[in-house]
């Protein structure tokens, strides 16, 4: 009905054809009694199947193959003495113990904290924008959110260093005008865990605005009017109508932010230089550096750990998105 519904329908169709082949086949077999219906259903299956081929090939090459290689390498180990390579669980074991385990826990904490904070802040911001009357403001926010959500890495880290670093512009102004030291009086240290969390919010909040705005705009004014006509208070409307409708989207968005934060790396690397132990930085240290040699298989094991964390979350995200789309189309 609205402009968003066709694309939602297409993506839902893509998902079911792409991932649920066995189910589709079973369905065909059930209806195998009528020959005409059977041939039609096979043709109907074949045509979108052909259309999907480029996507499937792309998926296999750029997702399936790398994952398979990572999994393979994670279970390979080179014996330093003989130089022989064999299958082993040692890398996985190493990746789940000691400093690597600590980093994995740290990564999950960092991602959880930043995802939680940006979900709340992003939701409030998106609500403020979508309930506002200014069309221009909406467009401006949508555009800048799209830009800022992709503004990460080194440039972002150095932007923060230039503003609130030890010799940053704001740091100096605070010092000279108010006699306040950012680090001693306000206890803000950009080069610490808190600093990294604040910098992550810079691109996570716009990402939240980007993904939750369509859901907020899908809340129909009629629902609110109907609820009010039946005597509901504002709180009751949110608790019983809007909240449940938004919940799948909200949880799904939080998961997306979690995954995004978990895999972010360049910003943390530039700001902490090895003092913050998180898994993406450890993978980087293991595969590219001047100090450690022969750690490639351990890096693959660490990457596999992250895949194991992220894939179920992605599946839950997809499920929640589909549930959310039921009402908001």
């Amino acid at each position, binding site marked *: 009905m609205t402009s968003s519904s066709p694309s939602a329908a297409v993506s839902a169709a893509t998902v079911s054809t792409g991932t649920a082949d066995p189910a589709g086949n079973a369905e065909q077999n059930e209806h195998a009694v009528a020959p005409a219906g059977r041939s039609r259903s096979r043709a109907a299956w074949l045509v979108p199947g052909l259309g999907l081929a480029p996507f499937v090939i792309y998926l296999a090459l750029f997702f399936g193959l790398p994952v398979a290689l990572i999994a393979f390498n994670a279970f390979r180990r080179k014996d330093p003495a003989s*130089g022989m390579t064999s299958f082993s669980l040692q890398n996985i074991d190493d990746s789940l113990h*000691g*400093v690597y385990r*600590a*980093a994995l826990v740290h990564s999950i904490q960092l991602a959880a904290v930043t995802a939680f904070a940006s979900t709340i802040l992003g939701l409030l911001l998106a609500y403020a924008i979508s309930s506002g009357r200014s069309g221009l403001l909406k467009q401006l926010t949508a555009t800048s959110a799209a830009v800022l959500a992709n503004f990460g890495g080194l440039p972002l880290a150095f932007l923060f*260093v*230039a503003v609130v*670093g*030890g*010799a940053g512009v704001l740091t100096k102004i605070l010092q000279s005008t108010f006699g306040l030291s950012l*680090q001693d009086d306000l206890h803000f*240290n950009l*080069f610490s*865990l808190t600093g990294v969390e604040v910098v992550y919010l810079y691109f996570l909040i716009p990402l939240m605005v980007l993904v939750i705005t369509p859901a907020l705009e899908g809340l129909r004014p009629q629902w609110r009017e109907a609820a009010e006509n039946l005597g509901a208070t504002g709180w009751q409307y949110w608790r019983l109508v809007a909240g449940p409708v938004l919940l799948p989207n909200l949880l799904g968005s939080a998961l997306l932010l979690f995954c995004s934060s978990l895999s972010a790396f360049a910003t943390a*690397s*530039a*700001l*902490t*230089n*090895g*003092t*913050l*132990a998180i898994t993406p*930085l450890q993978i*980087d*240290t293991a*595969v*590219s*550096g*001047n*100090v*450690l*040699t*022969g750690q490639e298989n351990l890096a693959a094991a660490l990457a596999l750990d992250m895949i194991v964390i992220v894939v179920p979350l992605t599946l839950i995200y997809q499920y929640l998105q589909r549930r959310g789309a039921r009402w908001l189309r």
Partner: protein
Amino acid sequence: MSACSSKSNASGGGSGSKASAATSAADLGGMDALVAAAKKEGALNVIALPPDWANYGGLISGFKAKYPGITVNSANPDGSSADEVNAIKSLKGQTRAPDVVDVGQSFAISGVADGLYAPYKVATWSAIPDTLKASDGSWVNDYGGYISIGCDGAKVASCPTTLAALNNPAYKGKVALNGDPLKANAAFSAVWAASLAKGGSLDDIQPGIDFFGQLAKAGIYKPVQASAATIESGETPIVLDWDYLNAAKTTDVNGKGGKWTVAVPSDAQFPAYYAQAISKYAPHPAAARLWEEYLYSVEGQNGWLKGGARPAEMTAMTSAATIDKTLAAALPAVSGTPTFPSDAQTTKAKTTLTAKWAAAVG
């Protein structure tokens, strides 16, 4: 010689050509023949050579001026030793594969274990001390330096000259390394040097880790990668790095009003050399060998010296009076006798650092 065409080696990286098997210029019939073969190949692929690192920019232009027929393709100038070794492995058989590498000592050793390097002895082989080369010529140390304290006198009241002196509240938020000690050799070596200064040894890097832990807790150590830009802005006025890398920042920093000084700390002399090696799969095997001859000539060695690094043949060249005396005198003074860690000690230090660093400074 006729086999040395860069076009004929698309699949073998020059294997089969006479140059790829040559272990000295004499194998090819002397320097003139090597030059002719290299000119015929017409190109040299180098990797991970930053122009402002030990004067590599000057060395590359010197080589181009001397052998005008040879194009130098410089790939990934800011790459690491791991990137270089990966390039040899992954670009095997391609014309853009690296011909020569300049890697950290541990990658020289691991590369030999992986069979990546072609042994070659330059004409000045005997001038290189035995401790600085593999006996078969599969790698040769090229230039080295000491861990030093670079300090901007315009931003710091009194510049430290010992590592132990860094633990001083006056240096709060001012002390930086040139990277993550688990990734950057200079940063790793700085932690080890701090260990020597604080009662550790080449067998024990722990006191260095503890020392940086104290600096981190006191807010003195700032975990940001130092560069000329961070020094100029006052973000990192004190930097522990190789003396030649610290020295290379002098012009930049002083040009913007700084007072940059470089001192090798008196309480720890920690030296290290980088190593040259020729790729076994070099697409331009003759040019690779000519590049090595150039680097180990008087001109090449003085070229590194110009970048503030100490060339491998420094002792022999000092006796032969071929060293550039002005440049040699400009190097930061070193007191005491340096000792080099063994491979086993290096491995042990890395294992300890990997396990303990993040917890100590985090």
